[in-house]
């Protein structure tokens, strides 16, 4: 039961407080050494691992893109032979879509959602850890095979029959199909973790209609993942079984159907791009709120737009298949749906513009990237409406026009907001501000470079240049635009390099960030930068939709959570009424072991079906350990209080708050 009591000091810690905080630090500490790295369940540590890993894959994907642009800079170039080029474009798409875009959105959610909703960790910390390891293993699988010249080469969507047993011999496509399994399991784990946290672990007072838009975006995205990922799991499993055990899902000679693959893949594939895009909408709402120093205009419309986009996103997939022999009336339905989805996106942009109109704009790098988003994504969205039209699509489908469109919406719609998010939240994650000056260089190089690469591609597509060609003949007149695009790629790469330089520079020389350098409104900005392992010493009671701006002088908090065990508050779904004191498991080896069992199943499974039987036994063994083993609520691994930490880990938060 819950009581209200008075007489707690608001602006100073008593000795009892200090002792409690020391206990909290001990209980929540990460075990030392390499074992600590493998067993740590702290959502912040796991999220930062996701960020670093995904960013490394982003750089790999960028290198692959650079290789493609070098090959295509001149007609009949011999920089890459066709076999290598086909591997490169396949691995580029696969890396960017599966190993970078989705995981990095998961990463930001896993880091920020518990902080924004006022929890000490996520709902399922060990599942979170497992999700990361499975993702890492999948990425390693892909790249080891690529380095060994057995990288997949059938395109990132691997249409059958080209990817089937008849026309893609060897293990290349099998590796692709199994890598899909890893990244899909990881995404699903992330989604379950995020939904569980958002629904059940919010601070008291944070009812659903006070949820930050960032959190709404993560919630909506996670539900999309839940309903979309099974489709790609089936598509890749059908493909793998056609290849490995001679099933006939896609073999027309035995009643199978090549178009079945396309339906199954795109039923996932279209929501996938919204899974990548919608979290970025959350970043933008956070950044606009802070840098316009104003509450978002039309909160309800924004939430409904997010939900509408998610629903509509499931009804568009056939627009990837307009050139196949499907009935025209059916196709027209998908034209209508594909155009309709522009409406909620439009509403969001109008609301952001309305928020910023007449506001006190603080033009910092995060906001620059948001403005870049507006320019680039709106253009991409408009070409998307063009592609939605069946007759027009029949000309521009599978040409460089589509390459231009997809990069405008994905880079404009997700990568630009992501870089804005980096500049915004890296101070929170690392305790250092990035350089504004380098940030401006970063932005402009990326913006100009991006447009130079991809704008000409609209033209190239209309002039007849198809996709996924390793070279082209000189008589088409495509040479100069391709050269321009390749030069733009260099500039874009420079922009990304500036970001890396900025990050490294800031580690040493960046201004030290206090709790709330941007004067922002969400709860993560009430904690030190970076936050302590336990996040909140006292979970706040939220009083409005902009938690820190609506905080009264009284600043009510929650007391009564244990400091000798890892405990956080579980509240009700709609109104965040306290219900349970939830015990969170501490450092544990089982997620890693489960990931290794999963790895055995699906990697050895490329070669023999017995791997599944062995994997089942291994998995069961791990579950015995997981179930019967010690959940480590008191973190027995952390016997001593932690050694002298960097100054910013001290709990000075409450003293640093505003006014």
């Amino acid at each position: 039961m819950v009581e209200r009591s008075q007489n707690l000091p608001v602006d100073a810690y008593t000795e009892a407080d200090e002792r409690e905080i020391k206990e909290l630090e001990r209980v929540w500490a990460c075990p030392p050494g390499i074992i600590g790295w493998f067993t740590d369940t702290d959502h912040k540590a796991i999220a930062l691992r996701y960020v670093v890993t995904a960013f490394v894959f982003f750089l790999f994907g960028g290198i692959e893109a650079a290789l493609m642009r070098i090959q295509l800079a001149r007609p009949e170039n011999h920089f890459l032979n066709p076999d290598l080029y086909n591997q490169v474009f396949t691995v580029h798409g696969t890396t960017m879509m599966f190993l970078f875009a989705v995981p990095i959105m998961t990463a930001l959610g896993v880091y920020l959602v518990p902080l924004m909703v006022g929890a000490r960790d996520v709902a399922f910390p060990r599942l979170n850890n497992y999700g990361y390891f499975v993702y890492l293993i999948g990425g390693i699988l892909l790249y080891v095979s690529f380095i060994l010249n057995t990288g997949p080469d059938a395109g990132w969507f691997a249409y059958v029959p080209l990817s089937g047993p008849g026309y893609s011999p060897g293990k290349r496509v099998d590796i692709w199909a199994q890598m899909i399994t890893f990244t899909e399991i990881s995404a699903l784990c992330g989604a379950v973790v995020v939904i569980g946290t958002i629904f059940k672990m919010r601070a008291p007072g944070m009812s659903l209609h006070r949820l930050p838009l960032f959190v709404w975006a993560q919630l909506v995205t996670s539900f999309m993942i839940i309903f979309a990922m099974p489709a790609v799991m089936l598509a890749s499993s059908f493909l793998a079984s056609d290849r490995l055990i001679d099933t006939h899902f896609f073999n027309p000679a035995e009643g199978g159907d090549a178009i079945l693959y396309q339906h199954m893949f795109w039923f996932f594939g279209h929501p996938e791009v919204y899974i990548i895009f919608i979290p970025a909408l959350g970043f933008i709402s956070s950044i606009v709120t802070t840098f316009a120093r104003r509450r978002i205009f039309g909160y309800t419309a924004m939430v409904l737009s997010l939900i509408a986009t998610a629903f509509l996103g499931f009804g568009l997939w056939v627009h990837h298949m307009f050139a196949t022999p499907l009935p025209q009336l059916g196709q027209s339905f998908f034209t209508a749906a594909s155009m309709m989805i522009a409406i909620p996106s439009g509403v969001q942009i109008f609301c952001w513009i309305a928020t910023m109109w007449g506001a006190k704009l603080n033009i910092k790098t995060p906001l620059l990237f948001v403005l870049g988003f507006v320019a680039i994504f709106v253009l991409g969205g408009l070409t998307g409406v063009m592609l939605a039209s069946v007759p027009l699509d029949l000309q521009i489908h599978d040409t460089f026009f589509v390459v231009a469109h997809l990069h405008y919406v994905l880079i404009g719609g997700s990568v630009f907001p992501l870089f804005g998010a980096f500049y915004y939240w890296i101070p929170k994650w690392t305790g250092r501000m990035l350089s504004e000056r380098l940030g401006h260089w970063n932005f402009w190089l990326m913006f100009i470079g991006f447009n130079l690469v991809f704008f000409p591609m609209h033209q190239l597509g209309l002039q007849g240049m198809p996709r996924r060609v390793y070279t082209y003949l000189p008589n088409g007149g495509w040479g100069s635009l391709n050269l321009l695009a390749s030069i733009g790629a260099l500039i874009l790469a420079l922009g990304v390099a500036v970001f890396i330089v900025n990050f490294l520079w800031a580690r040493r020389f960046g201004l030290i960030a206090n709790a709330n350098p941007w004067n922002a409104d969400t709860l993560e900005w009430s904690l030190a930068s970076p936050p302590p392992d336990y996040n909140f010493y006292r979970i706040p009671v939220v009083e409005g939709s902009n938690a820190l701006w609506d905080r009264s002088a009284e600043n009510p908090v929650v007391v009564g959570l244990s400091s000798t065990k890892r405990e956080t508050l579980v509240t009700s779904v709609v109104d965040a009424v306290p219900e349970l004191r939830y015990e969170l498991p501490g450092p544990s080896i089982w997620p890693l072991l489960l990931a290794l069992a999963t790895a055995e199943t699906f990697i050895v499974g490329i070669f023999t079906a017995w791997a599944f039987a062995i994997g089942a036994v291994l998995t069961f063994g791990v579950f015995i350990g997981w179930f019967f083993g010690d959940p480590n609520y008191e973190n027995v691994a952390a016997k001593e209080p932690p050694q002298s930490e960097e100054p910013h880990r001290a709990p000075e938060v409450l003293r640093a708050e505003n006014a």
Partner: protein
Amino acid sequence: MTNSKRHILNGYGNGQRLLAVLLLITVSLTTSCGGGLQSALNPAGPQSQHISQLWWFMLIVCTVVFVVVLGVTLVLLVKKAQGSPDELPERESAESQRRKAFIVVAATAATIVILGAFLVDSFLVGRGLTAALDRKQGVVIEVTGHQWWWEVRYPDVDASSIFTTANEIHIPVGVPVTFTLKASDVIHSFWVPNLHGKKDLIPGKVSTIWLQADKPGIYRGQCAEYCGHQHAHMALWIFAEPREQFDEWRRNQIQSAVKPASDSEKRGQQVFLTSTCVTCHTINGTSAGANIGPNLTHVASRNTIAAATLPNDRDHLASWVDDSQQIKPGNRMPPNKFRPEEMQALLDYLQSLK
């Protein structure tokens, strides 16, 4: 935080630079518009014409929308209020909120109207593309996609008038042509941008597309669905010619292969029939009847070889026959090591097959 004002000139300067950059890019790119070959914006038939008109309509409207949205964004950067970053935000007045709500609703309504217009135009154009019409005067052609060439067959009610060729299609001008599309191995896509949009060739299924050329000319097409190693080099030509010319071409194609006249050509035929060529190629009127590779009965009448990759002249033919893997690595034709006199004879023979 006043150093922020030093790095960017001010909000206005920022926006101006953005606009300038965009204009520069747009101007430089649109002035490089050109090249009608294989271009969807250079229509030569009613389908591509209608699609092209749809394109220009959508482009103009979308450009206006883009300029408006961007313009509004730039203006709001200019109009930003002044104030210290440390003040807590105040709430907007109800009056201002109501005004903004009205504008947002109006903008949304405008969006819906524009999308509705696009939808209607798109549906009407689409219906026109697939409308059944009087094809009595028309031609039917079957195209089968292979890795990485196009098998082209002209069916006929009279069995003796059926013939097969490869990679080069002739059609009469001003007459609807129905293409029946099949694939023998993987998915390909038949696309001749000057004439129409594309249609996929899917193993196990038959798709249909009809198009028409209104002007005589030579139109290039290219496979538009990734189909493996040499997807980049799987192109085709459509020759649209006046009816008489088309009929003459057709009559010639129906004939069996020209019999070799000179000694060299006879020797060449002998080389052909006694080497691995016959395991893949057909020459009507000889014993070579395999269907793995293109039909060579009238190979010398074609303008290009290797799926519109190489000009059809003696040197290119020689390098192709000698080692096609150097030109299209991964294609299904093995290198052939002929002695020089065999090669010359073979070339004489092949070049006689008009």
